[in-house]
């Protein structure tokens, strides 16, 4: 019985020793020429552009990738002790949560004005980098655009029973609901949701599986962001049986949202951080987003991906994204009608 004791004492010492000796090994030496970026946008999309930035500026960028929500929660937990300089988020919701906690610094106006007023924070705390439009993706083997209604109200028709797919947990979907609440009002939004739910839609986890399900014919239409479709086509070829439908009558169903970036107020490298934001809004980076991620560039005179309806021709809502930060209210509404647990 006593046999284990010495072994255990030794192993405890080893364990503690290991933990502490390895700390010195792991601790990062932060030179002023190194930026720390928390990226809610995925590595496959962002890494090439970061490499270009480093080559052009000589500034190293250390990146932590994760989902926007997880990184926002991480920033909130870190508080003033955050090592981050920048937060690049998939949607304004994540930036809003961090901004509300007072963690973002004001951005200079010469950066902000590059982008249309709709696509930046009203308090100058973050700026949009790339745009995505809400669309209806449809199965192109079963349907043609003529079969589709003018606007989202059309999908409450019983003819669409069992044929709709949507991702209720997705931030963009919820932002669309927030847009509806702003434009249509709380009551009309609830009615629309109940009408859609009466058609027994299929819920998906996010945009990607929704698009996949539309193409495979599991459902006929899906409410998603526009750019996922083009990824699928790039991977699976033109035979991929789904296409985007930009609702002609616009409204919340054609809402344009952005990914955005903000500077963490406690970050030590202000100059480098601003240089990075400037680079993301440069022609090089904007053209990269337009051609590689199929998103909408937010500065003028950039060639958009073939087949996209230009941003100016989209019958989008004239609504500032800063006004769409109340996701909580939309989540509660979705819970109330039973679309979320």
């Amino acid at each position, binding site marked *: *019985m*006593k*046999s*284990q*004791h*010495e*072994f*255990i*004492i030794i*192993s*405890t010492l080893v*364990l503690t020793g*290991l933990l502490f000796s*390895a*700390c010195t090994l*792991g*601790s*990062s030496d932060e030179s002023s020429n190194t930026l*720390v970026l928390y990226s809610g946008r*995925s*590595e*496959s999309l962002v890494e090439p552009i970061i490499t270009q930035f480093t080559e052009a500026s000589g500034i190293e960028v*250390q990146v*932590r990738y*994760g989902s926007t*929500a*997880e990184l926002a*929660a*991480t920033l*909130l*937990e*870190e*508080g003033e*002790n955050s*090592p981050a300089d920048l937060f690049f988020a998939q949607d304004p*919701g*994540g930036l809003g949560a961090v901004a509300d906690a007072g963690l973002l610094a004001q951005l200079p106006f010469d950066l902000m004005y590059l982008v249309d007023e709709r696509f930046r924070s009203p308090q100058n705390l973050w700026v949009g980098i790339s745009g995505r439009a809400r669309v209806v993706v449809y199965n192109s083997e079963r349907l043609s655009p003529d079969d589709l209604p003018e606007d989202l109200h059309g999908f409450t028709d019983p003819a669409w029973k069992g044929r709709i797919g949507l991702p209720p*947990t997705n*931030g963009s979907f*919820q932002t669309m609901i927030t847009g509806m609440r702003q434009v249509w009002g709380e009551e009309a939004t609830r009615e629309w949701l109940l009408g859609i739910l009466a058609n027994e839609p*299929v819920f*998906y*986890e996010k945009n*990607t*599986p929704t698009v*996949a399900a539309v193409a*495979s014919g*599991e459902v006929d239409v899906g409410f998603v962001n526009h750019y*996922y479709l083009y*990824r699928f086509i*790039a*991977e*699976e070829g033109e035979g991929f049986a789904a296409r985007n439908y930009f609702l002609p009558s616009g409204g919340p169903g054609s809402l344009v949202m952005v990914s955005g970036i903000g500077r963490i107020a406690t970050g030590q490298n202000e100059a480098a951080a601003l240089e990075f934001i400037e680079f993301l809004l440069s022609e090089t980076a904007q053209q990269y987003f337009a051609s590689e991620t199929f998103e909408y560039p937010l500065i003028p005179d950039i060639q958009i991906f073939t087949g996209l309806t230009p941003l100016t021709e989209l019958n989008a809502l004239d609504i500032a994204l800063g006004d769409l930060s109340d*996701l*909580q209210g*939309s*989540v509660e509404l979705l*819970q109330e009608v039973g679309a*979320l*647990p």
Partner: protein
Amino acid sequence: MSEILRQQPSQLRRLRVIPSQARYPTLRSIFGLWIPTIFVAGLVLLPIFYLILRAYGADQSTWEQIFRIQTLETVGRTIWLAFAVTLASTAIAVPVAWLTVRSDLPFRRLWAVLTPLPLVIPSYVGAYLMVSTIGPRGLFQNWLESSLGIERFPDIYGFPGAMLILTLMSYPFILLSVRAALQKIDPALEDAARSLGLNAWSTFWRVTFPQIRPAIAAGGLLVALYVLRDFGAVSIMRYNTFTRVIYIQYQSSFNRSTAAVLALVLVSIAILILAFEIWTRGKARYYRSDASASKPAAVIQLGRWRWPALIFCSLLVGAALVMPAGMLIFWLLRGLEAGEQIGSLWLAAKNSILGSSLASGVTLVAALPVAALAIRRPNPVSRLLDRLTYIAFALPGIVIALALVFFGANFAPFLYQTLPLLVFAYAILFLPEAVGAVRTSMLQVPPNFEEAGRSLGQKPLQVFQKITMPLIRPGLAAGAGLVFLTTMKELPATLILAPYGFKTLATSVWSAVSEAFFARAAAPALILILVSSLPLAALILRDQKSEHRS
């Protein structure tokens, strides 16, 4: 020494307990067992402290959200899923363990290596693959449609899909634990039972089964708690468990207080399950009767059962491993054909192996005092400490990660975002896997072996090396193996706590699959399976060799 041990009268059923030490803790046991155990338990409870701290900030709307009828429904659904998955996993794992350890199943070693492997497939990938293959209008269904004209598969979403995928991904918890127990079971008991006229079937139920019961319970507990914390499978299968509701709080409303309160509800479900497990556990003792146990157990001839057994193993490996791997290969080839570029994965593979090896080493060392204390000083306090190490296992990875972000960034900045803190997170996440495996195997070591060694003048460490170690080796190996495999696929803690640029295979898969880069996801996923199978193969083959040698 073994001479002396052999002279002990062997008893068939239970060994007399020798009260060899005073009931009061000695100075040695305080420093050797109690302090390390309390230290480990305290560290594991850090996330709980964090949750209580966060829950403190909850406001009215949070409580309104908790006290809803939906919450009760979610609790019910979660427990029901945990129960069903545990039951199904046991039904799969126990026969497979027995077949691969004790029978003359054809290609036994191959099955022994292949059957635990589904554990390394991240559950969101497994679920995604399953939807792509056997989902409504999946690959398999398309094939059926073109050849047989079947139009639509029955829906796998919801409970059936979640149960299927979680069972296939988590039965290895029970499998590895039961395998370890079977390897060190005392064959004398079975021999005696057979010589008294029991047939193989009754021998299994009346002699073998009671002895592997603690191993089933240890593994089953992991399965049940794992179901509580899984997010990937339930979200893709759209089955609303508690963890999914917690994730929605983080994802949609960035509401950490509500998430914390919900996580504490999850903790209480975990406590309920732990209490249930203690209640089902008898007071039986399980150690072997004498040292003759090093004699290998006889291989049981399957006879005409060979083929059904073979088909069973093939179907299992087919569904849990070959089907997902096949789909991954399909993705990879399709992507390569379309001109996708697959970057080098060498660094990610190296990081995965480094992180997982460190995690299994550290976790094993932390598990030893906890398990030893629970076995050698069985009293309510030591048992409680042992159970405490399980609670964090039921929590979603994101909760553990955020707890360590909070403590790390604010109180230990020198550790924050370093490899040691990440390994520490892994240890918190996976400690019960090691504790369970080590505890189960220590149950089989009679304390008087060690005392005999001591009385013969051996130093405690020597006794541990020469007597305890060899006897609990299968348990240590099972514990290390489990921690290694589950660390390989760990995602949320790795993403948030790893040093910058510390890509692993799991993060590479995630990063690609979340943007629909399927070919780029397939390559690291396949390497993940391949790399994990190597140490597992080494472990299992070495065990079987040492069995045959002795």
